[in-house]
């Protein structure tokens, strides 16, 4: 097994490095937006790889396996946001055509808003990137027996090579390769397990046919039925609604996803790459719930009536890594949980269900090696996209636009861009090695923060000419304070005790209300203060039309 894991990891890394060398860049336009020359389908694949993180690849099916029906919050939340992005943001931001998200906000509103936005972009992306570093560590430590520290350093070196050398261009084309690696790695075991369990190779179909047996097994183990709605979350229907909405709105407001739409040739290209992106993403997201259900079924079948001695063979190596815990004294296994505090007989971490699925299903060694390469591809591609946002916010928005007042030469800008990228990576390595205690919790809440800060002022900035700088600044800050405040109130952060959820609303769902607060404040303040200048209103008008009107092309005019 070791051989195949090394084989797939090293050959995939080799491909990324060759692509990076071939797409190295010299100009800022290449570095930040890949010269706006990325073909539509390639951009769709790059968005998909950018989007699907270590959490999507490694963790999501596992979460669904334990959450059951309510796993839908992640499935709908992390795909539905693309509809908002495609219809409301991507074409207009592409038409406006600059380098970063804070740059749009700064030009549309004011320099003050630009700085707030740049800081928000850095904070959101940073909390997110730490999760990718530790996710890569899980893959390395399990499959290569490498210590987690070295794993993080190796992953960082590969990212360093192609992001510093090639900027957005290098990142884009490696992401296309990474998408292919990760989707292949995800689908092959899923199809094989589907065939093995249900005798039919399409997981989305087999999924339905095993639900009755899975429900019955879960009842035997003292769990809720898999198909039972609102059983997995304490807040019930209201909470499921708010969390889904918060993830959708947050998805549409995440800077590392939005900037990918700056790289297409045309406005039309931005619309179609949103379609390709979601199509590519849906291949994994439609399969994930099936993988979750299959693995759970195999897990429960394998452990039903078993004792510590006759457990399936795949469990032992994971138990060594601490991802599976067995309560030895209890004899026959009666309860299974993913929660260490539950005191169940067998405790299995969410993070291993996908990586272990080929082993659980008894697949041959090459497929297990491919899973390792897929998990790494997911972590690397997302980390690189996030690092670009961090470095461009620092070097372009803060250094070039604010400090050098747009006077820096091309060469200096490139140097600062590369230095900022290297700096961001070094900080990410340290954070990945010693994750600050609060970061792991905050990752899931990056969405809530993006929803309550960026999304409302981007939408109003595009669709409402009267939205002004004072309104946007007030809206972003109240949204941030409102959502951030509720998260600090309900979670154990910064040494403060966790409080009860108000009305059962979990901190993941607060972003929906934060976004509503931001919308309201921005509208009220904008109405009370002076509307933006004529030029700004004309700029808002101009981004509505993909090109100048051509009489002949219009035909009947």
């Amino acid at each position, binding site marked *: 097994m070791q051989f195949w894991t090394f084989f797939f990891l090293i050959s995939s890394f080799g491909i990324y490095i060759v692509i990076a060398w071939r797409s190295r860049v010299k100009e800022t336009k290449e570095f930040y937006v890949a010269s706006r020359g990325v073909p539509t389908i390639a951009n769709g694949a790059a968005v998909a790889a950018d989007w699907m993180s270590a959490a999507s690849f490694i963790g999501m099916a596992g979460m*669904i396996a334990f959450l059951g*029906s309510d*796993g*839908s919050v992640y*499935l*709908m939340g992390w*795909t*539905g946001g*693309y*509809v908002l992005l*495609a*219809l*409301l943001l991507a*074409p207009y931001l592409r038409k406006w055509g600059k380098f970063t998200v804070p740059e749009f906000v700064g030009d549309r509103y004011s320099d003050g808003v630009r700085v707030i936005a740049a800081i928000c972009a850095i904070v959101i992306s940073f909390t997110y990137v730490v999760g990718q570093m530790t996710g890569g560590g899980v893959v390395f430590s399990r499959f290569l027996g490498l210590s987690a520290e070295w794993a993080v350093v190796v992953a960082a070196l590969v990212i360093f090579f192609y992001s510093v050398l090639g900027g957005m261009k290098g990142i884009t084309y490696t992401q296309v390769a990474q998408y292919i690696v990760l989707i292949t790695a995800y689908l092959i075991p899923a199809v094989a397990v589907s065939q093995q369990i249900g005798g039919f190779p399409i997981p*989305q*179909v087999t*999924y*339905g*046919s*095993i*639900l*009755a047996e899975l429900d019955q097994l879960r009842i035997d183990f003292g769990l809720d039925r898999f*198909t039972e*709605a609102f059983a997995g979350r304490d807040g019930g*229907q209201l909470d*499921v*609604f708010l969390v*889904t*909405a918060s993830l959708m709105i947050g998805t549409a407001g995440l800077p590392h996803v939005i900037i990918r739409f700056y790289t297409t*040739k*045309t*406005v*039309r*290209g931005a*619309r*179609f790459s*949103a*379609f390709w992106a*979601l*199509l590519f993403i*849906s291949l994994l*997201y*439609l399969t994930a*719930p099936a993988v979750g259900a299959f693995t759970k079924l195999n897990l429960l079948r394998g452990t039903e009536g078993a004792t510590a001695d006759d457990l399936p063979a795949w469990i032992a190596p994971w138990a060594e890594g601490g991802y599976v815990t067995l309560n030895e004294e209890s004899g026959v296994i009666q309860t299974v949980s993913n929660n260490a505090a539950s005191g169940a007989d067998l405790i299995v971490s969410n993070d291993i269900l996908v990586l272990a699925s080929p082993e659980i299903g008894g697949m041959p060694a090459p497929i297990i090696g491919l899973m390792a390469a897929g998990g790494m591809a997911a972590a690397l591609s997302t980390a690189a996209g996030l690092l670009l946002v961090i470095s461009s916010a620092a070097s372009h928005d803060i250094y070039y636009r604010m400090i050098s007042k747009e006077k820096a030469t091309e060469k200096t800008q490139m140097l600062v861009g590369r230095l900022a990228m290297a700096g961001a990576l070094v900080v990410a390595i340290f954070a990945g090695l010693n994750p600050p205690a609060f970061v792991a919790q905050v990752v899931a809440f990056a969405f809530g923060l993006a929803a309550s800060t960026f999304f409302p002022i981007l939408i109003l900035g595009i669709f409402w000419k009267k939205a002004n700088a004072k309104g946007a600044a007030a809206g972003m800050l109240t949204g941030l304070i409102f959502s951030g405040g509720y998260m600090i109130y309900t979670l154990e952060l910064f040494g403060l005790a966790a409080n009860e959820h108000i009305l059962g609303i979990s901190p993941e769902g607060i972003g929906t209300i934060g976004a509503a607060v931001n919308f309201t404040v921005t509208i009220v303040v904008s109405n009370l203060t002076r509307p933006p200048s004529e030029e700004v209103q004309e700029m808002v*008008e101009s981004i*509505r*039309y*993909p*090109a*100048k*009107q*051509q*009489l*002949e*092309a*219009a*035909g009947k*005019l």
Partner: protein
Amino acid sequence: MSDATQEGSSGAAPPAENDWRQRYWKKNLRLMIVLLAIWFTVSFGFGILLIEPLNTIEIVGFPLGLWFAQQGSIYTFVVLILVYALWMDRIDDEFGVSERNGKGERE
């Protein structure tokens, strides 16, 4: 194919000159609202608000509400974006604002 633009060459009366802009924008907004209404109905409607009544209907093993929440909504999202992109091509062409290169070909 000439590059004549409405702003530069048309001799029409000033109020009518930008009339097409409003019509274009209205068509765009109408399409957007229809698609977002479907988006909301399928995901939040079928997948969350009505999931329990829909779960009483079973189709090839799936309780229908669960199917919408974990599968059907995602299929719908993909189709919605495709319809949007294709429909906007038609609107762009109708108003002559699609992006074309020097030869008048779509870029």
